[in-house]
């Protein structure tokens, strides 16, 4: 492995005549959207190569080139691995660009010619894990899940040995191409860490559903274990067919974790009582760990590995390296060869949301005809797709805009719940009495608080960071 060797030297590439212009590419289709900027699928005119263009918005920046983009570029330039997205180059657009409505762009602030826009050029990937899993009828096979998990862990292990924390591992940031390759993407929240873990880092990272207990409890000294918790959440989600901790705010998130993993105490997590919010969120009743019980229908080796990933105490949580050695990956059925996986039509969460919305609209029209506005959605094959997305826009006239802001290449940070409460209400899979408990077949009596999609779910992937971006960038020692 690379590790020490990489980056021991100060590199300068061969001299260039500055960045190329974005005009070298033809934009084909928008595949993502966020506060960071839009993401497009584009074709390099000269070579015909398809790439992804992630726009870095400059127009709101009082402090020049955004530090979030600096972080991402810095880290991506350092990482070279088959399971990490490749930043091919950075291109600029000189002229004032036309915005989406076709109005000419604002004249650049400070007369800076680069204000037209800066784009990061990535290799194009056909899917992200969430988009792929949300396809109607999609069922992953066990060798397929093992194959994806192993690649995810390999990529993450590489990041960790190179002292990079990803800090936003979730399905929509895991890209998959039609060769079955998985790549980690969106390093906009990533940062380097040193092994002594003495630096104070912000705990306002990682999308809520995938955020580990130590961050929810307010710790500011943490390490690679935070990413491993997220991996555990994704692993369970792949096996279960839906997110396992869909909290709508931080207290609820912790509660969901405690319900499954038990409440932390000095026995299972030495030192936990010194973490800032430990007392604030101390449960009033006893909460036992019931992970094995809830997921007893999982394969034995899968459950064993999941147990180690969803360990409350970060110090005892399994590392990426050890996870790769787990029995799970070395017992039948073995992980399949990525190339043997079926090829799917392109799917990104941004797009599947769009398609889903179309389906919903059709369904809504149908239902209105039948005058059953509250009728549960028609079950489609592969019901987990239903379960996870809760397509139930029956009573809202406001369409769920395809703002699906969690696409890997660019997604909102620092916005509360971009499609907040109008997302999940009315009808819904639970209302239909489809699988009863929140954790499905394995746990009919599993306690629930408002149900996995009840009320105003913040939506998958909303980062819940609050505040504005500038505050996040400059206010914290990240």
């Amino acid at each position, binding site marked *: 492995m690379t590790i020490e060797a990489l980056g*021991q030297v100060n590199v300068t*590439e061969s001299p260039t005549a500055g960045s190329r212009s974005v005009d070298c590419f033809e934009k084909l289709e928008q595949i993502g959207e966020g506060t960071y900027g839009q993401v497009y699928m584009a074709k390099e005119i000269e070579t015909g190569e398809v790439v992804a263009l992630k726009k870095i918005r400059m127009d709101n920046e009082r402090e020049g*080139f955004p530090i979030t983009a600096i972080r991402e570029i810095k880290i991506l330039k350092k990482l*070279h691995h088959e399971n990490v997205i490749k930043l091919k180059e950075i291109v600029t657009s000189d002229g004032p660009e036309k915005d989406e409505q076709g109005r000419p762009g604002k004249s650049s602030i400070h007369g*800076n010619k680069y204000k037209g826009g800066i784009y990061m050029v990535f290799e194009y990937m056909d899917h992200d894990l969430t988009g792929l899993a949300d396809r109607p009828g999609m069922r992953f096979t066990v060798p397929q899940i093992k194959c994806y998990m192993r690649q995810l862990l390999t990529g993450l292990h590489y990041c960790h040995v190179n002292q990079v924390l990803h800090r936003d591992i979730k399905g929509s940031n895991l890209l998959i191409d039609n060769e079955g390759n998985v790549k980690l993407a969106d390093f906009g929240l990533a*940062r380097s860490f040193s092994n002594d873990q003495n630096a104070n880092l912000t705990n306002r990272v990682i999308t809520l559903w995938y955020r580990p207990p130590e961050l929810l409890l307010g710790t500011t000294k943490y390490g690679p274990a935070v990413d491993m918790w997220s991996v555990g959440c994704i692993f369970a989600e792949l096996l279960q067919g839906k997110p396992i901790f869909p909290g709508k705010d931080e207290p609820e998130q912790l509660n969901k974790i405690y319900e499954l993993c038990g409440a932390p105490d000095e026995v299972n997590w030495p030192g936990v009582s010194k973490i800032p919010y430990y007392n604030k969120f101390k449960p009033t009743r006893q909460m036992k760990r019931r992970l094995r019980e809830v997921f007893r229908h999982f394969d034995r080796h899968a459950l064993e590995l999941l147990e180690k990933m969803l360990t409350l105490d970060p110090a005892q949580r399994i590392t990426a390296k050890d996870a790769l050695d787990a029995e799970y990956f070395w017992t039948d059925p073995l992980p399949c060869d990525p190339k043997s996986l079926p090829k799917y039509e392109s799917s990104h969460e941004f797009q599947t949301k769009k398609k889903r919305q179309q389906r919903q609209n059709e369904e809504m029209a149908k239902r209105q005809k039948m005058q059953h506005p509250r009728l549960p959605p028609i079950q489609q094959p592969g019901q987990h797709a239903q379960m996870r997305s809760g397509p139930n826009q029956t009573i809202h006239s406001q369409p769920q805009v395809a703002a699906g802001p969690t696409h890997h290449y660019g997604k909102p940070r620092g916005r509360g719940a971009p499609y907040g409460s109008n997302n999940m209400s009315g009808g819904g899979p639970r209302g239909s009495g489809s699988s009863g408990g929140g954790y499905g077949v394995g746990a009919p009596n599993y306690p629930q608080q408002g149900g996995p999609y009840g009320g105003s779910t913040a939506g998958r992937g909303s980062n819940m960071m609050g505040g504005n971006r500038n505050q996040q960038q*400059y206010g914290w020692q990240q």
Partner: protein
Amino acid sequence: MAANFWTSSHYKHLLDQEDVDMVNPLDKEKGITLEDFKLIKMHMANYILKLAQQVKVRQRVVATAVTYMRRVYTKKSMTEYDPRLVAPTCLYLASKAEESTVQARLLVFYIKKLYADDKYRYEIKDILEMEMKVLEALNYYLVVYHPYRSLSPLLQDAGLNDLNMTQLTWGLVNDTYKMDLILVHPPHLIALACIYIASVLREKDTTAWFEELRVDMNVVKNISMEILDFYESNRMFTEERINAALQKLTLRP
């Protein structure tokens, strides 16, 4: 993936001294000599340090900023990229890259405080615009590895990690940024050269320790010589000579 440092693409991209010492043709036309070129870069390294002390950022930020500045001038001319703007811009960019952000307006404030001279006076918009140009010149490579990191483990290994030696070597490393060493040599060799000089100065016998290291002692000694040469000629770098060199840049050809 490179198996080790010596086969990594990074190693191959370190610059040769000749490339670093290439005075841009545009600057040459204005009569800038290699001597002037080095002098201006040294002066700008000092300028970055002075500014950094005002805005209070870590030494690491200074080191990164100076490296950026030196990298810029391996590709760009001083005629087009005024060093008096590039220097504070590099500090501004380095402060972001090293996670100790400094606001542009603060930099502008201290620039005015440090230099009354109009030629140093730049506004926020100038810095922000130059930031993009610097990023391009750096080809967005922002990660810099410094000798500081290897210094303390090396000292410890050599059994020289007392306060006196630590301070002396640290100071020597600081001074290496007044030269182009960081563009030419791997950081751990620069650290070793500083340890070598310090051990000679303090009369510590490190011969056996150096022999056990698998490094090319010739390179370490060459770096050491370069540092000593710099100290030797340091007193010749007078304010007048620096101003004269900078003056040439403002002349019309």
